[in-house]
């Protein structure tokens, strides 16, 4: 088997991997290689043809393919090696990567450092257990997006969408404009999963009904979906008898959440965080294995691609330093612990040596609150927190001095006025 030596190997060529590769190359790593199983670079972005990307990073309202192209151009300028249609099969803690493609067969890469940037995958029906038959015509919103925007197939004519995350909302509009009838978007929670902008511009603009606190209680149809029954749920998420509605449809789209893609990480022995579903990382985005870094949706499902690119910059820069033997390992690491109304946070560990931005996702929406770190270290007012939006908070050097006296710090959302 051929063995190739590189300084930095980046697994995944989405926005996270692209930013990491660019930062690694700009940071002095001579040989940087991106490996991706797809035919093109950009990860999920080529199929996200809607606008709304890059408002932070470029101060422009770009579509997914436009956003990706800016990074792809830079990758070409820097002559970063790109191996497409290449599946990474295995990563070992000693930074050896096993991969396969049609041209080279199975080959091994020995890397100075590795960046994990495999993104996330969609939850599918298996994770849901809806009663009823198992007909065709049930697919995830992301797969439907790929069919419509890249391949030119409409998945159906009369559609019901389960879940009101942004992908589902964007697809409701897209399907409607392409001539399908979206009969309902059904959301189990009392509030929509996606951004208000998408609720307004993707549903209300087209009079698509949104059923909150509802879910699908039954799927009908033998070979193909013929209808679904939806029902209202109570606080325990149980169906309320007598609230059922029968909606005939030929397609059911699932937009019920994303999970970081971490099979490679866990088989390598990288420690995972039960809250994010991704690797535990420090502020340099190093995982529990020295020289293996991670960034983007593989670490935590982010709402904005801008955050993903930012994290790619950090991981790539530090991966280059590691490969060059210049990364100082921190003396100690302080643990950040999710407290009240915190779903997950990144990074989970900080050295306390450098200014650090933490990314936080909350569990439920709340108004007039504060983001609080430790006792008297930091409190920032937030008029509103929402699970669909990542909160960011940057720790200044002064705050880090306070933090440095501790081994762990709780991060929580507290009601304003309460101490």
């Amino acid at each position, binding site marked *: 088997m051929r063995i190739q030596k590189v300084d930095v190997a980046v697994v995944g060529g989405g926005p996270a991997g692209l930013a990491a590769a660019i930062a690694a190359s700009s940071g002095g790593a001579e040989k940087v290689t991106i490996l991706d199983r797809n035919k093109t670079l950009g990860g999920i972005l080529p199929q996200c*043809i*809607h606008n709304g990307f890059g408002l932070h990073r470029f101060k422009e309202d770009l579509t997914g*393919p*436009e956003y990706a192209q800016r990074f792809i151009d830079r990758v070409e300028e820097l002559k970063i090696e790109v191996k497409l249609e290449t599946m990474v099969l295995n990563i070992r803690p000693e930074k050896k990567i096993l991969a396969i493609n049609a041209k080279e067969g199975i080959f091994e890469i020995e890397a100075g450092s590795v960046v994990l940037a495999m993104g996330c995958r969609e939850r599918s029906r298996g994770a849901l257990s809806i009663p009823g038959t198992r007909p065709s015509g049930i697919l995830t919103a992301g797969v439907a997006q790929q069919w419509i925007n890249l391949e*030119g197939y409409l998945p159906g004519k009369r559609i019901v969408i389960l879940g009101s995350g942004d992908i589902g909302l964007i697809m409701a509009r897209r399907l409607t404009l*392409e001539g399908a009838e979206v009969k309902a978007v059904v959301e189990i929670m009392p509030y929509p999963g996606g951004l208000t902008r998408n609720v*307004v511009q993707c549903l209300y603009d087209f009079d698509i009904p949104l059923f909150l606190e509802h879910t699908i209680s039954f799927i009908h149809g033998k070979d193909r979906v013929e209808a679904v029954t939806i029902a209202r749920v109570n606080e325990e998420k149980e169906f309320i008898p007598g609230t059922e509605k029968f909606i005939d449809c030929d397609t059911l789209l699932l937009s019920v959440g994303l999970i970081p893609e971490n099979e490679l990480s866990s088989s390598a022995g990288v420690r995972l965080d039960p809250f994010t579903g991704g690797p535990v990382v420090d502020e340099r985005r190093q995982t529990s294995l020295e020289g293996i870094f991670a960034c983007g949706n593989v670490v935590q499902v982010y709402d904005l691609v801008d955050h993903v690119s930012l994290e790619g910059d950090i991981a790539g820069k530090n991966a280059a330093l590691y490969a060059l033997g210049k990364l100082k390992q921190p003396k100690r690491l302080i643990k950040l612990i999710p407290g009240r109304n915190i779903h997950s946070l990144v990074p989970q560990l900080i050295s306390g040596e450098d200014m650090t931005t933490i990314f936080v996702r909350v569990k439920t929406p709340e108004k007039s609150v504060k983001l609080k770190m430790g006792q008297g270290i930091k409190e920032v007012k937030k*008029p509103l927190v*929402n699970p669909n*939006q990542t909160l960011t908070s940057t720790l200044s050097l002064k705050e880090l001095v306070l933090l440095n006296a501790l081994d762990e710090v709780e991060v929580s959302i507290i009601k304003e006025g309460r101490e």
Partner: protein
Amino acid sequence: MDKTREIICIICPLSCQIKIRVKNKKIVSLESNGCRRGKEYAEQEFYNPQRVLTTTIKVKNSDSSPLLPVRTDKPIPKEKLRECMQYLANIEVETPIEIGQIIASNILKTAVNVIATRRLKS
């Protein structure tokens, strides 16, 4: 006769539900907006709601990608979205295509162009 309508502001995450009262197709009063930007937004949404349209166009000669993603270079009036889609359904393009290349100019006399958002090599 006065009518009331609610407009949800999308300018910031607070999502204020702005209440407007309408008389003779004009806004006569506006409340529950958290700030000035909400007033401007509600007026724009009431008098002339506009949206950026993104969609795809058929590519004649490409074996790698049968579709080209496109967008309007400025927002167009909301009520023209569907008409615009119909117009674009009949257009076909040939590679090579550059990002920003005009695919349809002055669409439906709106003074807005439809431009490519992806590079397709020939």
